[in-house]
């Protein structure tokens, strides 16, 4: 059973349906015991980093997620859920993350050319770093396949853990991994067949 962490942030309908579509039983839960029983965990998220980090801590779920990761359970952060894996974000002030991926979350605007629109919204191609093996998360997709992004901030100073980037002026971090912890800036549940294939690979880790 896969558990989607429910901490009152965002709509989890599409994510649950996409997992069901690939034959995975997914439970949306904020219950510590259910998360402990799950064999893998997805940390979703939309909205502002500070609010989400507070919501997670208020429910004690930061501690639960860290404990399950410590046990070796695969964790996938999606969109803001990926950003929460980092040390900190500077969105509306400095906020502490879970510290599972070394690096920080910074605004896109200063690093992309002026004519590029922010938020970065739409389908963009994934590029894999040349100097390392392709991540098992991408076992069922090919480099260059497009996924759907919606974000104004991005993870940075995380090069050793970067498993995919997307070109938007510079190459922006699209996915990260460190041991059993994975993060996707894009929305696999909105990325058609490619997204389902990424979720399928995660569910087989």
């Amino acid at each position, binding site marked *: 059973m896969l558990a989607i962490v429910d901490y009152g942030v965002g*709509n989890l*309908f*599409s994510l649950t*349906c*996409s997992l*069901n*579509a690939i034959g995975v039983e997914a439970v949306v839960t904020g219950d510590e015991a259910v998360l402990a029983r799950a064999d893998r965990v997805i940390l979703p998220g*939309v*909205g502002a980093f500070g609010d989400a980090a507070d919501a997670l801590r208020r429910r004690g779920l930061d501690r639960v997620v860290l404990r399950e990761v410590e046990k070796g359970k695969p964790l996938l952060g999606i969109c803001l859920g990926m950003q929460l894996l980092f040390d900190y974000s500077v969105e509306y002030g400095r906020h502490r993350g879970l510290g599972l991926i070394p690096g920080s979350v910074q605004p896109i605007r200063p690093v992309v050319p002026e004519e590029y*629109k922010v*938020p*970065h*919204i*739409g*389908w*963009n*191609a994934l590029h894999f770093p040349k100097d390392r093996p392709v991540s098992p998360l991408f076992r069922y997709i090919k480099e260059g396949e*497009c996924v*759907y992004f*919606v974000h104004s901030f991005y993870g940075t100073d995380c090069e050793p853990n970067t498993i995919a980037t997307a*070109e*938007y002026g510079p190459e922006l971090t699209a996915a990260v991994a460190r041991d059993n912890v994975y993060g996707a800036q894009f929305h696999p*549940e*909105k*990325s*058609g067949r490619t*997204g*389902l294939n990424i979720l399928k690979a995660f569910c087989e880790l």
Partner: protein
Amino acid sequence: MITKRIIPCLDVKDGRVVKGVNFQGLADVDSPVELAKFYSGCGADELVFYDIAASAEGRALFTDSLTQVASSVFIPLTVGGGINTMDDFDRVLKCGADKVSVNSGAIRDPSLIRQAAKRYGDQCVVLSVDARRVAGQFRVFAKGGRVDTGLDAIEWIRSGVDSGAGEIVLNSIDTDGVRDGFDLEMLRAVCDVVDVPVIASGGAGSVDHFVSLFRSLPKVDAGLAASIFHYGEARIPELKQALAAEGIPMRL
């Protein structure tokens, strides 16, 4: 590189797609779910559903079918039609919509854009505008293009973006249904004043019209159309191949 989006638009009345689409292999020609699956399988980058129901019963049937679509199609979904209050936003987002498009509702109550952007984020709020030329001006029309609001379209769009609209759908009534190409002049005027994505609508009659849209106006992010896709005059896989061959970034 971010790709340009191709977006089919479906009008839904009482839970059925208006003017059912007659594609080979589609058993149920006016089922929103069947058509959504079909277009998603063809490579559509996003789908827009307009609810044209006039009754509460029709509205309930719409949200039922939206829920079914969102359970089986995993690309971004935009919903429009009958969005007048924050409750309407809530209703369609709970059923799996990713973005909500406001038109007449925002004209009646412009604060709706700001409220929705604050609660759900700018990326969730699409301002859809029907405009036509009147007395040397691009004028906003309401109620499905029937009522002249007297508003200047460029000013209206600019203020909508300032209030938090994260995307603009510009439908030119002058070119809509004529099938002689998108309204490049009107689109250019809008692209010049906003820095959020602009989606062109109205006038697509051939593959070439999409080529000239993206070639002439690099700031346009997406092309939206209905009948050209529904009647099979342009098939999405071939359209996207043709655009890619012209050097326009496409998700293939």
